[in-house]
């Protein structure tokens, strides 16, 4: 319990002092995870919606695999992306291993299945209600998928937050493809892992508290915006 109190106190101290290294680490974390969340949504939302409203062979198998990929371990993704981007690997000539770009790629791969699987379920449920009316209005299946994504935007905010949360909280993928290089690829989660392994538990806790507070603030902000918009649009 003492360690947590220590951590909380240190967290306050770090934030109040505006420690530049901390600011850099926080900004990098947000940059990487928010970018991955954006890409994950750009790919995952239309993918999930399309699977929900179209018919194709092995459709149910695809849904099962997509749902299973939600549990993809982050270290596995990190390892696979590392093998791809390593100089010895197929994309080695891109030279992006141990950069934030590689971290964004790994996190995007990690969270896209979650976003796709959850949006697939939401759109499929809504499709039951909307199907006849949308087809009556002459909407194609793909057009209907996009219309439903827009109509379900409030529920989808939660899906997007789930994707971002998974990205911001994971350490396995960014550790392997980023290398936790000080000042270059060190993010909140890898810092916490490093300080823990150095035995500096109060500092690790402090960083953890700061990370949680930031994610909480982002979620609160999203919630408020969603509520306000919902009141306007029903």
């Amino acid at each position, binding site marked *: 319990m003492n360690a947590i109190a220590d951590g909380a106190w240190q967290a306050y101290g770090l934030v109040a002092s505006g420690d530049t290294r901390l600011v850099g680490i926080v900004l990098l974390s947000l940059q990487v995870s928010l970018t991955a969340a954006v890409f994950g949504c750009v790919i995952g939302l239309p993918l999930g919606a399309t699977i929900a409203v179209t018919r194709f062979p092995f459709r149910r198998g695809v849904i099962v695999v997509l749902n299973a990929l939600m549990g993809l371990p982050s270290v596995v993704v990190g390892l696979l992306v590392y093998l791809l981007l390593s100089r010895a690997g197929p994309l080695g000539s891109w030279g992006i291993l141990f950069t934030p770009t590689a971290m964004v790629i790994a996190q995007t791969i990690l969270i896209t299945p979650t976003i796709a699987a959850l949006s697939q379920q939401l759109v499929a449920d809504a499709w039951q209600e909307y199907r*006849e009316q949308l087809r*009556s*209005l*002459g909407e194609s299946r793909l057009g209907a998928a996009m219309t439903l994504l827009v109509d379900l935007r409030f529920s989808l905010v939660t899906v997007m937050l789930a994707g971002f949360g998974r990205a911001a909280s994971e350490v396995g993928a960014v550790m392997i493809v980023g290398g936790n290089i000080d000042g270059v690829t060190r993010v909140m989660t890898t810092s916490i892992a490093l300080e823990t392994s150095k035995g500096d538990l109060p500092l690790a806790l402090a960083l953890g508290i700061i990370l949680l507070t930031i994610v909480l603030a982002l979620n609160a902000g999203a919630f408020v915006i969603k509520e306000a918009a919902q009141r306007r649009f029903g």
Partner: protein
Amino acid sequence: MRAPLTLLPLALASVDYATATRRIIRGVSTRIDAGPRTVILGPNGAGKSVLLRLCHGLLAPTSGAITWNAEELPGMPRRQAMVFQRPVMLRRSALGNVMYALRHAGIPGYERRQRAMAALARVGLEAHAGSPARVLSGGEQQRLALARVWVLRPEILFLDEPTASLDPGATQEIENIIGALHAAGTKIVMVTHNLGQARRMSDEILFLYGGRLIERAPTDRFLRQPASPEAGRFLEAQMPW
């Protein structure tokens, strides 16, 4: 210059519709022409809603053919429309929902907005143009559904018990709008279980029983003197006395 082909007449030839467990529509053959308002009557489970959906293309017949006079091209605004018992509105404003129907019309945004507003005015909802569609009452949403139809000026409008969930006041308003659509040239094909409404709103009746088209006659004659025993029993059961 040739006038574009009309969708109607619609020809049904030995149309069957069966699910895994039973046959819902059996061998229906008929022709739907432009002009008279058509009402489909019949007891519960007769297959009226299914027949409507088959005509509109929401369901495909398991055998037989449903043939329009002309093809509708994909990507063009629809020349048919349907209004359901419970309207399905998008999470947008009333105006937004009506404008949605025009998205394939190939007209610029400003004109879409104007036409949508005119349609809203026609059904008496212009004051609610900016309101979220989903907070409107049942009657208002049904009127909105008709505004969405109005803005397309379709050749044919299918209606599946459009006033079954509404109170008499709202029902009256809906019937007025349907009448206006008909006057403007849209063919009406409606399913109802309300005989009074059938009398008010139709020129001819298609009577469906057990999935078969038993009788077809002008409304007055059908209601006074049905030719088939099933129709006779049906009408008797509907009378309150």
